[in-house]
């Protein structure tokens, strides 16, 4: 079966720094795939290149077999993306953002209206009909971003830190939505540095360290007998365990 997302030798260099070094990844259809790594490991850069938001120096990415760079129209119609920290059309309300993007995707008007209502209600954003996105809190921005990723009913979701700054109740809602999506045959790739969350949600996981894949496979293959956190620290931490203390702070 064609992988939902297939990454071949993606490489990106920023000046002196090799941010992503020839990464290969396969995300099988119907899998819930977690990408974990330290800050600056190259997760965001990899995901940006995989969906066509950042041009790689070399390598390729295919979404359900469609090349992101040579057939962008077909590839991008199949994927919903939540990037981390990028702007939105800031002077629109949440409802207007979704209406705008739905129409932009070429959806019929009545479909757009229906899905917008439903998304706003489920993500508990419907109370903010008068609020412009620029006035949203960080958590609300995540939620409206997720709504834009889901709006056109893609077959693959690529989510960069989807749970950051989201309150526990909304997080539970989002988890339920994502699990339902995977049960229905959809595929999800998400990045996170919260190991417990990845362990709880994902069936596949890849550990990224300094721009390369340190380990990848099903969750059980990667963590073995240990917890994911222990495996992760062992894979990417310093030799001495990497845990330091502040002498002046603990009395």
């Amino acid at each position: 079966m064609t992988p939902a997302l297939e990454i071949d030798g993606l490489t990106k260099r920023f000046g002196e720094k090799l941010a992503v070094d020839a990464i290969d990844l396969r995300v099988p259809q119907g899998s819930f795939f977690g990408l974990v790594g330290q800050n600056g490991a190259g997760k965001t850069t990899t995901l940006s290149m995989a969906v066509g938001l950042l041009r790689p120096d070399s390598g390729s990415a295919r979404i359900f077999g469609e090349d992101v760079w040579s057939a962008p129209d077909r590839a991008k119609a199949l994927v919903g993306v939540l990037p981390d920290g990028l702007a939105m059309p800031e002077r629109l309300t949440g409802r207007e953002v979704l209406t705008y993007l739905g129409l932009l995707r070429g959806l019929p008007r009545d479909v757009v209206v229906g899905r917008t209502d439903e998304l706003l209600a489920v993500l508990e954003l419907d109370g903010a009909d008068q609020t412009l996105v620029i006035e949203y809190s960080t958590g609300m921005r995540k939620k409206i971003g997720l709504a834009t990723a889901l709006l056109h009913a893609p077959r693959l979701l690529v989510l960069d830190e989807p749970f950051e700054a989201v309150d526990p109740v909304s997080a539970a809602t989002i988890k339920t939505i994502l699990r339902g999506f995977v049960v229905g045959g959809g595929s999800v790739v998400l990045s996170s540095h919260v190991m417990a969350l990845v362990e709880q949600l994902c069936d596949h996981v890849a550990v990224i360290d300094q721009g390369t894949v340190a380990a990848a496979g099903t969750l059980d293959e990667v963590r073995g007998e240990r917890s994911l956190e222990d495996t992760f620290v062992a894979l990417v931490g310093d030799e001495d365990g990497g845990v330091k203390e502040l002498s002046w702070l603990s009395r």
Partner: protein
Amino acid sequence: MAVAVTMAAMKVAALRHSLRGTRAQLAGTGAALGAVLAGGTLYLAFGDLDLLAAAYAVWLLGWLLGPVFMGGGDETLRPEYFSLLGLKPRELATGLLFAAFVGLAPLVSIVALTGLVIAGVRLGPGNALVAVPAMLLQLAVFVLLSKVGVALVGLGLRSRLGAIGTGLVNGTILAGLGQIWVVFWALGQTGIPTAVAYLPSGWGLLAVRGVWWAIPALVALVLVLLGAWAALLTRRLGATRTSGSGRRPIRAASPGGAIVAKELRTWSRDLVRNYQLTFALAYGVGFAASPLLIGWNGMLPYAGPIFVVMAAGLAANMYGTDGTALWLTLMTPGARDVRGRQLAWLSVHAPIAIVLTVVCTAITGGPWPLILALLPALLGGAVGLVPLISVYGLVPGTDPHRRANNPLRTSEDDGGLTGQAYAALAAVAATAVPAALAAQWFGWAGPAIGVATGLLSWWGFGALAERRLHSHGPELLNEMRTGRKATGARSIQTRFDQLPTGRKAIAWWCFGFGAIPLFPQGVVAAVFVANGMTRQSWFLATYVSPGLRYPVAIGFAVLGVAMYAGGTWLVLPKRTKRQGSRPTPPTEAL
């Protein structure tokens, strides 16, 4: 006091870091220019002291207006940085004032203000002694008036009414400065009005000349301004409000319609855009109407065209001001973003421009063919070039939700924004040249040509912009995300920065002063000569013997064009390099 010293030290440290590499060169050029101006001011101190007072009035104007038009002024130390420290507003303002004294502009200004000491020495030992405190107080007045001015504009931009009011005032002031010759003409004098000496910029000089109240007045003014600034700082630390009325639902049913709907909402809700629109309108009307003061209405019909050109200049960073929201455009490759933005821009600006033009031209009774040729040509040129300039010469903006509480500061790259605005002004004006020439030579053929070139610019430049957005979208997004040019991209700005110092200075002069021979001494002078208005003002062509008038005016116009052409030639790349995935040396990253 410890706070003030610490803040000044922070500023020094920040300046030391920023004054490296290309920025240092830029600062060096600025310092050289400032030194020339300061030298000129000092020279005046040896002569007529009324002229010196006028020169200080100009310095004050520079301090007041510079930051408003150049992206909000120096923000090296932002008040927000200190909001968690629990400083009293007055303490914060005093500290920031001390920090504001550190920098190039204050340094240059204090050099210019040593003119007070020179004047004092000429007048007597007592006067020289007074000059020292007068100098420092005067500088404090400059810096504080500048800070209070920016803070007031920032406050104005928090409500729609304020944004519109500020735009009107600033547009009118800038237009008035551009047409200052009208004022001189109207006053019928070449001397300095006595009132100038009594402006706050002249109080230091008054003190030196022995006016007893001047020093106390300066001290009082500094204290009042400091208090005002402290009060404004506490207002600034509150959240920026956006206008929140009238949420009409989006009725569009197509991708193109959705883009227009989004843009129109942004035009009406973004207070910075409200400000830019009213600014352009006030500028157009002010510039064209000010010669009415001397009973000449020949410029009035051009209010509409000037408005269009100015609005295009202010909107030239169309994609940059939206920041990283570009990712949504990249993820929906089927939609034609540029066309939608063009349509929205036109539907906001064209009605105003058309009404303004028709009304003003009806008042003067013509020249209809020329005006009706210019208007469609400029509207088309603007709506085509604005997106094109914003994708080819993108100045990375700060994302709207990450901007500090200074609404005027949409980007960290002031120089880039200014250059881009000038480029847009010149390029848009140039699109009307064929139509204007046709109107001059063949009368009513002009409007037909204007409509044709307008449509062509709209369609053609728009198509080019769309293509660039398609082919370089990820690079533009990366520029926006990191605030620097993608590797391999060679913008005008970086090319400018990479010029050798000598050539860069020449290019600066060409772009900075090319307008003087071209417009006042060339075009306007020719119009005056043509209308037989030879009451000598400051147009050189009206001074010479009748046979030489046109040659002199034309000569100046040619000189102006040559300066622009020379500057462009210096900045243009000497050999074309194909940009692409070729890795570039890391030194290029700014």
